[in-house]
């Protein structure tokens, strides 16, 4: 084989390998960027964020995975994503609707509310008939091991924010949990939890996650939705003004 032919072969092999690498990178990056981002704007120095966590989701690929949803403030529709943005240095008022049943925390230390304003949350619980059996109870601890009350957590470790998210009491609700996502209060038992925190003064991306081992079907509850953006882990973009 001539030198020119060898050089051409080498160049062709390089282009193929490099192209393959670029394709794989773009495939995964492109896949990740397909997840929609919900943007929240401040009003009066505050921003209201609404999330819900469901026992399942409406995706085609992983419908049996437990999942968070984010409410679009523009049309109040629930978006199957875990990406949202808030302005920097703003009071963020969060409402989480917990439709999933309870699971004990791996580390019950995270039953303690940390990092919210006042280090408390306010919880209401409703049964499937809409009856409110816990009404606006403000607490600093939701003991995941003593009562069947914690479904998941909303934690932003980078901000030292750890919030146990109440579940509907499955025993009182006869385990008649929501079975079609996104869930609605009508006909479904749920918990409503509110809390506030201050967003960081400077912009950045803050990961948030669930600390309950909620990856059903995976070893010890790890994996699956626990490890996948769009389900039980997400990112909060803090946008500087």
């Amino acid at each position: 084989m001539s030198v020119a032919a060898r050089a051409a072969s080498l160049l062709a092999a390089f282009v193929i390998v490099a192209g393959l690498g670029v394709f794989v990178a773009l495939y995964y990056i492109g896949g990740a960027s397909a997840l929609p981002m919900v943007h929240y704007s401040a009003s009066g120095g505050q921003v209201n964020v609404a999330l819900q966590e469901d026992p399942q989701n409406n995706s085609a690929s992983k419908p049996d995975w437990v999942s968070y949803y984010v409410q679009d403030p523009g049309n109040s529709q629930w978006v199957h994503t875990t990406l949202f943005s808030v302005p920097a240095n703003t009071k963020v008022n969060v409402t989480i609707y917990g439709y999933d049943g309870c699971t004990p925390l791996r580390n019950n230390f995270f039953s303690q509310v940390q990092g919210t304003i006042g280090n408390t949350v306010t919880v209401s619980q409703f049964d499937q008939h809409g009856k409110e059996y816990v009404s606006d109870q403000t607490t600093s601890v939701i003991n995941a091991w003593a009562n069947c009350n914690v479904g998941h957590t909303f934690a932003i470790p980078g901000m030292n924010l750890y919030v146990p998210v109440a579940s509907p009491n499955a025993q009182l609700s006869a385990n008649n949990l929501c079975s079609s996502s996104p869930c609605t209060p009508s006909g479904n038992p749920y918990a409503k939890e509110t809390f506030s925190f201050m967003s960081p003064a400077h912009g950045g991306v803050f990961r948030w996650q669930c600390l309950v081992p909620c990856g059903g079907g995976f070893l010890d509850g790890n994996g699956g939705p626990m490890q996948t953006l769009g389900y039980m882990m997400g990112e909060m973009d803090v946008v500087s003004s």
Partner: protein
Amino acid sequence: MTTTTPATQSPAEPSHGRRLFGIWLILALAADLIIWFVWKPHLPPGDLSDSARHQQLDIAVLAVSAAPVIIFVLLYFTYAIVVWRARPGDDSDGEPIYGNTKVQASWIIGTTIIVLWLFVFGTVELVGPAGAGAGEGPSPVWKLAGATSATWTPGGKTMLEVQVIGQQWTWTFRYPQFGGMESTELMLPVNTPVTFHVTSLDVIHSFWAYQLGVKADANPQVDNVAYTTARALGGVTVRCSELCGIWHGAMFNYGHVVTQAAFQSWANGVQSKEKTDGVLAALPPFALAYDPTVVPQLGAALPKIDGITGAAGYYYPPGDPVTP
């Protein structure tokens, strides 16, 4: 190594050996002095603790040991190119190579001394600082001096016990001498021997308190013991150094080394708050390791499906309906 015999060396030929040795000595001495006095104070991981200081010393000593060797190799390489290169028009063969007992003996003795020195120094530096800040497993061979006690007070020689708990993707730190209270912040008192009990609640992590020079694997259901003594006030960054999932790279917590009085005040404050809030009673009894499939307060393992617990791993009595 190429050598020439005196018979083939011209009378005007300088003594290359002496010249090389002289240049090498000056360069090696200069490099070692620069390493020791200029570079060493800035070497990682710093000097916040005894273990960190020893690691800084180790790196400096290794650099000081290696620099003369590297300089010799590079110097000989450069010298050979400059002095012994073929001149234009010189097509003659090189000088024949003969064995040289002195060179061979020097090489063997020199490399033996270097290897033995590193062996002895490394062993001393592993044993002396009680494991050099590394995890020694549940039964440490090299223990840090200090009295053990169920309580800790400032001014004494009592060791502080800190349990390091890893889980995807955050660290918590439990203080059994303060009622088993737990924190997401690693706080340590200065000039106090510390025993870390490192464990995990899920997958394998690795506790890396960078500025303290402490690194120990966090394995589920294993108590991995590591020691250190902080010697200065300052901040600590705790990272995971074992690939543990998608957010391994973001798994870090912070901490501080504070005065003994400030530490006691902080620890008492956290213990009091957790007691008041009720979270202290909600924590499992302190143990050196935890079974992630057991809720101690309930006294039974979580139900499993094909050996798996998780979202459906509810913990109601068997008679209760199953959650989805």
